C-alpha cells in the first residue's frame, strides 16, 4: 500500500539522485566534477530531510552545504591547482587512484554489513509521526533546554573561523 504512494515515488527519485551522484563522486577522477556531484548529493539529502518531516534541518542543510561548504571546496580546488603553462598537457584536476580493489571490497563489506545489521534489529519507532513543521519547536528548544550547547557551538564556530583565517594567512 505504501509502495505506490507519491511519498514513496519521491523517495525513490531522491534515492536515485543521491546514491547516483555519490557513486559518481567515487567513480570520477576530476575534482571539479566530484564537487558538482557533491552538490547533487546535498540536494538529495535535503530532500530526504523534507521526507523525514525535518524542514528546519533541510533548509539549514541547503544553506550551509550548498551555499557555504561547496563554495569553500571550490575555492580550495582553485587555490591548490598548479599553474601549468597554456600548452601543458597536465591537468591537476585529475587525481590519482590507488588500491581500487581494497577500497571497493571494504566499501561493499561495510554496506552489506550495515544493511544486514540493521535488518536484524527491531527498532523502537514512534507510533504517530508528527507531520507538521518543527521550526517553532526547534527554536524553543534552542532557547530553553539546549541553550548552553547553542552558545557553546556559536563560540566554537567563531573560534574555528578566526583560527581558519589565521591559518590560511600568508605567514612570511
Amino acid at each position: 500500500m505504501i509502495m505506490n504512494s507519491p511519498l514513496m515515488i519521491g523517495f525513490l527519485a531522491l534515492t536515485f539522485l543521491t546514491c547516483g551522484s555519490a557513486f559518481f563522486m567515487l567513480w570520477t577522477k576530476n575534482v571539479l566534477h566530484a564537487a558538482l556531484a557533491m552538490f547533487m548529493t546535498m540536494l538529495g539529502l535535503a530532500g530526504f530531510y523534507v521526507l523525514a518531516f525535518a524542514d528546519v534541518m533541510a533548509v539549514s542543510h541547503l544553506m550551509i552545504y550548498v551555499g557555504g561548504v561547496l563554495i569553500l571546496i571550490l575555492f580550495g580546488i582553485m587555490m591548490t591547482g598548479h599553474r601549468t603553462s597554456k600548452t601543458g598537457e597536465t591537468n591537476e584536476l585529475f587525481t590519482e587512484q590507488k588500491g581500487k580493489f581494497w577500497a571497493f571490497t571494504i566499501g561493499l563489506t561495510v554496506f552489506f554489513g550495515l544493511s544486514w545489521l540493521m535488518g536484524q534489529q527491531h527498532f523502537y519507532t514512534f507510533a504517530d509521526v508528527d507531520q507538521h513543521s518543527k521550526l517553532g519547536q526547534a527554536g524553543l528548544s534552542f532557547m530553553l533546554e539546549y541553550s548552553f550547547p547553542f552558545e557553546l557551538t556559536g563560540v566554537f564556530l567563531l573560534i574555528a573561523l578566526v583560527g581558519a583565517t589565521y591559518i590560511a594567512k600568508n605567514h612570511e
Partner: protein
Amino acid sequence: MNEIPLIFFLWVGAFLFATGLSIILIKRNVIFVLMGVELMLNAANLNLIAFSRGDEQNQGLMMGLFVLVIGVCEMSIALAIILQVYRRFKKIDIDQFQSRN
C-alpha cells in the same frame, strides 16, 4: 500510516557511508578525501534525523543541527590547513607525506 519505513532511510545512510569510506580509501587528493569525510558525516546525520521522526522532544533533530555546525568548523579548518600545505610543498597528494624511519 502514510510514511516511509525507517529501514529505507537507514539503507540510504549505509550506502552513503560506504561510498564515503571508499572515496577516502581510493583517492589521493586531500580535497577528495575531505569530500568523503563530509559524505560520511551526512550519512550519520541522516540516521539521526530519520530516528527522530515523531519524537516530541526532537532530540535527533537538535543533535543533527549541532553536528551540521561542527562539520562546517571542521571543513573550514581543514581547507585552511590544506592551503598552507599547498603553499609549503606545492602539492596536496596523500602519498607525498612519508615518514623517515
